[in-house]
């Protein structure tokens, strides 16, 4: 069976696409042909792409001046994320969210009548051999972006 895989990376200002065709089922890694700012990296992992671990730029050590630093507002697709980084004793001690995507408006009465069937279970790691991964990637990347810019300010 013919299989084709295409990965794209839509950026606010431009789009990068690459096309890869393959004839057998062996794993293929597709990456955008170019990646913009490093803090945005990482195509969403699927079974075919190696899970591209986005290394956050949160450093551990003591390179920062004490103070409170506001990061840039980063687009999390559903809205903006903007954080405030608090540096104390040269270390990152707190991160507060100044902006967070939230569509909540006025108070609402949700019909809570229908709920007899909910079940619960503990989280358990599963085999990673899946076709597609669903997850909210946007928020975390925007978070990393905003925090990075806050920490950049703390350095200077």
């Amino acid at each position, binding site marked *: *069976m013919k*299989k*084709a*895989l*295409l*990965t*794209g*990376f*839509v950026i*606010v200002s431009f*789009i990068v*696409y690459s096309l890869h065709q393959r004839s057998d*089922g062996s794993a293929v890694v597709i990456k955008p042909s170019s990646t913009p700012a490093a803090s945005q990296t990482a195509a*969403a992992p699927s079974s075919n792409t190696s*899970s591209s*671990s986005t290394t956050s730029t949160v450093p551990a050590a003591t390179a920062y001046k004490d103070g409170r630093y506001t990061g840039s507002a*980063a687009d*999390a*697709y*559903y*809205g903006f994320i903007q954080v405030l980084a608090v540096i104390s004793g040269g270390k990152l001690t*707190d*991160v507060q*969210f100044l*902006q*967070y995507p*939230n*569509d*909540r*408006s*006025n108070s*609402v009465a*949700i*019909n*809570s009548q*229908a709920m*007899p*069937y*909910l*079940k*619960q*279970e*503990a*989280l358990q*790691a*599963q*085999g*990673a051999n*899946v*076709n*597609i*991964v*669903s*997850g*909210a*990637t*946007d928020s*975390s990347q*925007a*978070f990393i972006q905003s925090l990075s810019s806050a920490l950049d300010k703390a350095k200077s």
Partner: protein
Amino acid sequence: MGMPINVVIEDEAADEAAFREVRDYFHYVDDQYSPYKPGSEVSKINAGLPKSKWTTEMKTVLKLCQQTKDQTGGYFDVFRCGRLDPSGLVKGWAINNAARLLKKRGLKNFYIEAGGDIQASGRNDQGRPWSVGIRNPFNRDEIVKVLNVTTEGVATSGTYIRGQHIYDPVNGHAEIKDVASLTVIGPNIYDADRFATAAFAMGQAGIRFIESLKGYEAYMITSDKLATLTGGFERYAETAA
């Protein structure tokens, strides 16, 4: 902010033109609806473009936004601080439309995934349902649930941030700590995505909202590392891939 898009087509008939069409379509949507592009219609509307000059498609999208707001008790609102930002609806809408483009080409077995939201169709290369892993909100490299879907939409709303204080900017800076992620399965990604977005904003009540919708199932992960499932959820999870 980038949004990764994956398109996989298993049909013999898949050709580059099909991919190109999907790519061009997403490009078009981004150009038209991005609130961050000064030339987009959304930006022009925020800059005061009179309603008489809005495109028919924009009016349709805004009608869908209003409809969604009504259906979700106000939890889905595309006007933030008085500015139009229909991104929360447009993403699922665009994936759904792109899937229609592929169907129109006679393609049956494929998926389109954009930023963790998925429209699947038909079967995978093994002739089985597509397996969709739900990412662990506390460990990005881990899958905590595997679903098997054929022609359905799967959307996850959430925050993959651990140990941070997340404040609700609207309701007096109350801390949002309950729901780490909420995954919704529905008949298509348009509906799954908009309901997942609204339900996530509802906090723990969100899964009850999904439970009250016919044809939708959800998997909610809370900060205590427990998952709550809607009544019919397990039928997607039971047949192990």
